[in-house]
């Protein structure tokens, strides 16, 4: 009886404790937008970080399955280049986070380019394109990319190739004639329809179901405590201050910053955005990249100078290297090793887990 009584008492105590144990309040902070946010799974104050299911598209190129399918084929098809040897996917590999794993890309005949290949993930959510922002839409970027001096052709006029040879080549492929007609009835195979189809495909490459996204939607176990601490550091203007440029929801402000890379201190540095907007602040400024799927897209920075995510974090922690035209948003940060572990863990929580990508069959 006595044993039973003790057991009952313990059970009662356990029940009372479980009911009345104090609930730890979720951390609250004022983020880089001056919004007060509560760091709890599914909290309404964090909704701004959730991406829409589909990115916006221009009225004359709304996405359809036919357009996306055609665009995917063109993206992977070397017949799109003058030589018939280079494709979009040469520098934007799905297995490398739609980048290429190289510090700076290598194009036609082994020419090493000045900038790294940016991921195409979530491009559709952006409002300006290329590292220097010289293209306002995906469609215009696609048209520009088909020129003889574009990346895919590497200025091959000196090899005797004619501008637009790829259009003639595509028009001789019955499969493409049919696919273009289905996707863009009556519009033919032109620079514009090629660009539109590729843009439609690029808008379908989306990362919006990462552990972080699931946490935002209410799954409290989707990211661990370290990743939650990393997120808190990321958005806190008094700590890591990352979201001052890597805005919600696509982790970019579609803006331009000189982040103090050593390469800007070299003789004749790449002036970046300054070539488009000759304003002093833009000297050496490049577009803020998304951080969605960032764990897959090493190396980092527009010049590929950071091998690992940790190298990026250390760069920002020391406030950059070249201070000659440093973004006013940057300054040295007091981050411990634990802080950097947490930030790195958070950045890895931004990867949407995908199945291996199946390359498309190309038409004949």
């Amino acid at each position, binding site marked *: 009886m006595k044993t039973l009584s003790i057991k009952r008492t313990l059970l009662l105590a356990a029940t009372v404790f479980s009911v009345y144990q104090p609930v730890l309040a979720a951390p609250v902070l004022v983020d880089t937008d*001056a919004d007060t946010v509560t760091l709890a799974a599914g909290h309404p104050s964090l909704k701004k970080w959730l991406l829409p299911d589909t990115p916006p598209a221009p009225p004359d190129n709304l996405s359809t399955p036919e357009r996306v399918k055609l665009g995917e084929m063109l993206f992977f098809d070397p017949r799109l280049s003058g030589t018939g040897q280079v494709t979009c996917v040469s520098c934007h590999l799905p297995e490398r986070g739609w980048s290429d794993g190289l510090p700076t890309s290598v194009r036609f005949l082994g020419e090493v380019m000045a900038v790294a290949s940016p991921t195409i993930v979530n491009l559709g959510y952006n409002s300006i394109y290329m590292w220097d922002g010289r293209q306002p839409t995906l469609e215009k970027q696609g048209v520009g990319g088909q020129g003889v001096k574009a990346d895919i052709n590497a200025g091959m006029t000196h090899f005797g190739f004619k501008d637009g040879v790829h259009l003639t080549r595509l028009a001789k492929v019955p499969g493409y004639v049919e696919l273009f007609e289905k996707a863009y009835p009556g519009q033919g195979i032109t620079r514009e329809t090629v660009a539109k189809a590729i843009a439609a495909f690029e808008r379908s490459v989306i990362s919006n179901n990462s552990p972080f996204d699931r946490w935002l939607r209410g799954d409290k176990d989707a990211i661990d405590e370290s990743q939650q601490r990393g997120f808190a550091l990321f958005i806190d203007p008094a700590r890591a201050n990352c979201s001052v440029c890597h*805005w919600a929801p696509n982790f970019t*402000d579609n*803006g331009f910053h000189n982040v103090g890379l050593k390469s800007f201190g070299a003789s004749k540095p790449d002036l970046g*955005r300054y070539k488009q*907007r000759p*304003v002093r602040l833009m000297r050496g400024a490049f577009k803020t990249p998304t951080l969605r799927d960032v764990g897959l897209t090493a190396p980092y920075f527009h010049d590929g100078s950071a091998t690992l995510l940790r190298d990026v974090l250390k760069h920002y922690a020391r406030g950059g290297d070249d201070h000659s035209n440093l*973004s*006013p948003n940057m300054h040295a940060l007091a981050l411990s090793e634990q802080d950097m572990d947490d930030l790195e863990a958070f950045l890895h929580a931004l990867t949407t887990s995908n199945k291996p990508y199946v390359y498309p069959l190309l038409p004949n």
Partner: protein
Amino acid sequence: MNMKAMPLITLAILTASVAAQASENEVSQKNKTFSVKTLKIKKGDTVSFPNQDPFFHNVFSLSPAKTFDLGSYPSGETRKVTFDKSGTVDVECAIHPHMHMSITVE
């Protein structure tokens, strides 16, 4: 009356008159956008561009009617431009190019 002083007095009166007519307008930068997309002002008017966001913005224009670069400045600060020529002036934030607006100077 000293006749030589007349032109100077006239000039002073005219200058005072123009100064009295010139007005100051405000275009704030808040929630990552300019407070208005368009603004009509008169020649000689001034526009101030207060930064009411918690982070840096920049205001510049490369329009022939008024080329200026106010540099980057933080929350709470403001900088001013006087528009002394007629025309259309496209204004942009260099850091955040989606922030742009247009001023018509009459």
